[in-house]
């Protein structure tokens, strides 16, 4: 069963919640990156704190690997159940490295390593995950110094744990070297020393950091998986950057707090998931009416209702798109990768500020929980603009202007008064039932949509310029589809990815007019974005590739489904 791995390899670690799968995910990805590999890690987990079966998939490559693979090259299970749990993705090619005896696993393509016995020798069964990590690192021929130095950083706050953990890694490493030398597993993936300077973050962190680049100085949130990641990141960063982090009593409070924050000059966001956002809709409408910005991050998960709380989906585009009663403009961004997340979260704040509207950042569980290395970021172009105006004495908050945007004042800055009202109002902001003013104000608000549309971010097209088949996707399917496209090797095929989902520039029709066959890829059961494309761009989607079991597409799976569809 000797196997050679060249371009890339996928290693999956599985076990129960509480067995420290996340610790090795963190350890391995960082160390392998330090060693010059491209890394990608994604996890899938159950809605529980202990037990069950979770897994982390780590892909390591010579070239950037940035999407989930349904192919497991090496599986390291820490429970018997987790093998069962993954049975559909284990192939005849998969090599299992496991404590076969202790786990009572019976499998032909296996390398038996007594992880648990070794851990117990070190002093505690819980070290078994670290032993396993050592084994893997040996297979990658990672130097000990690189390992130790990263481990010291990771355990910096718990120095008492370092010795035992290093012992565990060493013991695993020994075994890994034996495996390597035996020739069973041979990893020949090129390293690139530049990669060690890459940053390694996940989607939540990218959204949080991007928001900060957009000037985010306050976050109001009620915890909800998988939206909480952004809250936790901002809380953590608030140590170094002055960020007001407040957990609200419920989601309704959260969005009203954020709007109150913006009104008084802060730049606030909320972060939640579909069910929590459903409670915020009246607030979205308030933002639309009083033209006070707000930035809303929704990390999607499968519904309806509680659904599958820790799984992934793209089911809440319609929810965001049509949220709030009445009619008013909004913008929706959906990052396709970490670079986009950094950029679009920043832009979300800028758009909110400029157009004075609610702005959405739509991600999903798969996206926020996935890590990979990206190049260092360059913010030198970022302007620290704050469009608030110093008010004059007779300041009119809703002065009618040509493009619908009225200079936004805040209380306490200038001589004027800032009056906002959720009722229909006049230019000063005072309640009115004058129906002519109503029409003017409604037109004013909606007219901002035209400008938004004109300035909509361009979609990205990849593949054959001279395409016949065009595959449309949004959000986290970007990198997966990119990999599939490469696998496909089909000329005449291109992909198009929309970083901004709404509104769209009517010019974008041209991309669809060229295509003979249009295929969409979405993680939902009804094709929500496909419908939007029909409404916005008259695009007729010929085939919809949909998935709604709570897991992301893998590149392999998507390749196959596209092949069938073309």
């Amino acid at each position, binding site marked *: 069963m000797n196997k050679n791995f060249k371009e890339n390899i996928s290693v999956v670690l599985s076990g129960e919640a509480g067995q420290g799968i996340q610790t090795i995910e963190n350890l391995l990805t960082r160390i392998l*990156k330090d060693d010059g590999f491209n890394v990608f890690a994604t996890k899938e987990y159950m809605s529980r704190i202990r037990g069950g079966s979770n897994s982390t998939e780590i892909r390591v490559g010579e070239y950037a690997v940035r999407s989930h693979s349904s192919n497991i090259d090496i599986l390291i299970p820490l429970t018997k159940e987790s093998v069962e749990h993954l049975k559909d993705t284990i192939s005849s090619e998969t090599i299992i490295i496991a404590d076969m005896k202790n786990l009572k696993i019976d499998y032909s393509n296996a390398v038996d390593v007594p992880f648990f016995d070794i851990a117990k020798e070190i002093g505690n069964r819980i070290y078994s995950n670290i032993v396993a990590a050592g084994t893997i690192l040996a297979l990658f021929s990672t130097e000990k110094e690189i390992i130790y130095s990263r481990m010291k950083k990771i355990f910096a706050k718990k120095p008492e744990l370092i010795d035992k953990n290093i012992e565990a890694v060493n013991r695993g490493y020994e075994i890994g070297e034996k495996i390597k030398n035996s020739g069973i597993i041979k990893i020949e993936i090129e390293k690139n020393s530049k990669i*060690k*300077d890459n*940053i*390694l*973050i996940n989607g939540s962190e990218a959204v949080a*950091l991007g928001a*900060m*680049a957009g*000037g985010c*100085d*306050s976050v*109001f949130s009620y915890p909800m998986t998988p939206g909480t990641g952004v809250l936790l990141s901002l809380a953590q960063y*608030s140590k170094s*950057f*002055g960020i*007001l982090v*407040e957990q*609200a*009593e419920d989601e*309704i*409070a*959260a969005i*009203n*707090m954020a*709007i*109150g*924050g913006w*009104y*008084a*000059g*802060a*730049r*606030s966001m909320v972060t939640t998931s579909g069910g929590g956002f459903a409670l915020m809709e009246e*607030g979205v409408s*308030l933002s639309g009416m*009083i033209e006070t910005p707000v930035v809303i991050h929704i990390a999607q998960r499968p519904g309806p209702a509680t659904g599958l709380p820790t799984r992934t989906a793209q089911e809440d585009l319609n929810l965001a798109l049509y949220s709030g009663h009445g009619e008013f403009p909004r913008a929706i961004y959906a990052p396709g990768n970490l670079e986009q997340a*950094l950029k679009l979260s920043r832009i979300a704040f800028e758009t909110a500020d400029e157009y004075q509207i609610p702005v959405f950042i739509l991600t999903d569980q798969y996206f926020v929980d996935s890590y990979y290395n990206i190049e*260092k*970021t*360059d*913010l*030198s172009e*970022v302007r*620290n603009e*704050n469009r608030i105006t110093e008010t004059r004495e007779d300041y009119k908050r809703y002065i009618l202007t040509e493009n619908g945007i009225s200079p936004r004042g805040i*209380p*306490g*800055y*200038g*001589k*004027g*008064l*800032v009056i*906002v*009202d*959720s009722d229909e109002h006049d230019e000063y*902001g*005072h*309640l009115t039932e004058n129906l002519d003013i109503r029409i003017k104000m409604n037109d004013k608000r909606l007219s901002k949509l035209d400008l938004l549309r004109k300035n909509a971010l361009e979609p990205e097209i990849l593949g054959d310029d001279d395409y016949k088949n065009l595959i449309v996707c949004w959000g986290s399917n970007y990198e997966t589809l990119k990999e599939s496209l490469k696998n496909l090797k089909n000329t005449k095929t291109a992909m198009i990815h929309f970083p901004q989902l709404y509104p769209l520039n009517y010019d974008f029709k041209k991309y669809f007019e060229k295509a003979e066959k249009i295929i969409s890829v979405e993680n939902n059961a009804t094709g929500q974005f496909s419908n939007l494309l029909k409404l916005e761009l008259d695009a007729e989607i010929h085939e919809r590739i949909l998935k709604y079991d709570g897991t992301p597409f893998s590149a392999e799976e998507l390749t196959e489904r596209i092949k069938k569809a073309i």
Partner: protein
Amino acid sequence: MGNRIELFARNDEKEMDIAWCPGCGNFSILNILKAALSEMEEITPENMVLVSGIGQAAKIPHYFRTNTFNGLHGRSLPVAQMIKAVNPELHVISESGEGDMYGEGGNHFIHAIRRNPDITNLVHDNMIYGLTKGQASPTTQKGTVTPVQINGVFLEQFNPIATAITMGATFVARASSGDPAQTKEIIKKAIRHKGYALVDILQPCVTFNKINTYKWFKENSYYLDENYNSENKMKALEIAFNTEKLALGIIYKNEDKKAFHEQLTIYKENKEPLFKRKHNIKELESFINSKI
């Protein structure tokens, strides 16, 4: 000082078409608030914000000259708290009807108090939903018949004073729209209190509440004694639970607790409101790039 009252009057006050019924207690509260503010030199229309929800009471900011956030029904407290938190230089008053504050907004009411934000919470308590034409509110008395509660209300009457004290409020008062002089003083103290201050203001609704009239309020309320010690929580609660005779005045007070914004780390070293701060993009860039 007399002149300062003009400060809070809208320029078009003459033409202003007030939506309240003649004889409504809201007029009196409007005037009292203006008078109170005019006597507080530290406050100007520009450095304060009046935040309200939706209802008859909640229209009050429109008859005022000041910064206004007239938001959603039931949601004035989340807004008011964070206006204060992001700019502690502003004086923030959250004002609405009792249906707005204790009904739709009940969850914010209890949890806002736990934060002890330095805001003043004025509640026009007419014991009825005025704007929607006379349904029961949380403080409607048992037995009151309405177009919805056709056999009379039988839910326990909500007790805002006792609830606020129970939640740990640091200033809890009841006042009456029928007594401008004393109510003005109570409101001034509430505004000057450093922390969350509730003033539940008894207000007759002459159109929909035929039970709790001016006369009824007069006959069923009394002022706390001059010597009353408002720092005894259990005593305050006992008074609050007496709904036969409603106590007027500052029922409970606790000056020892820090306000919400005083506890925030963003103000530990830097006292400036958030809008005045420049974000250091270079520093952020290094921070992001250190996440290797």
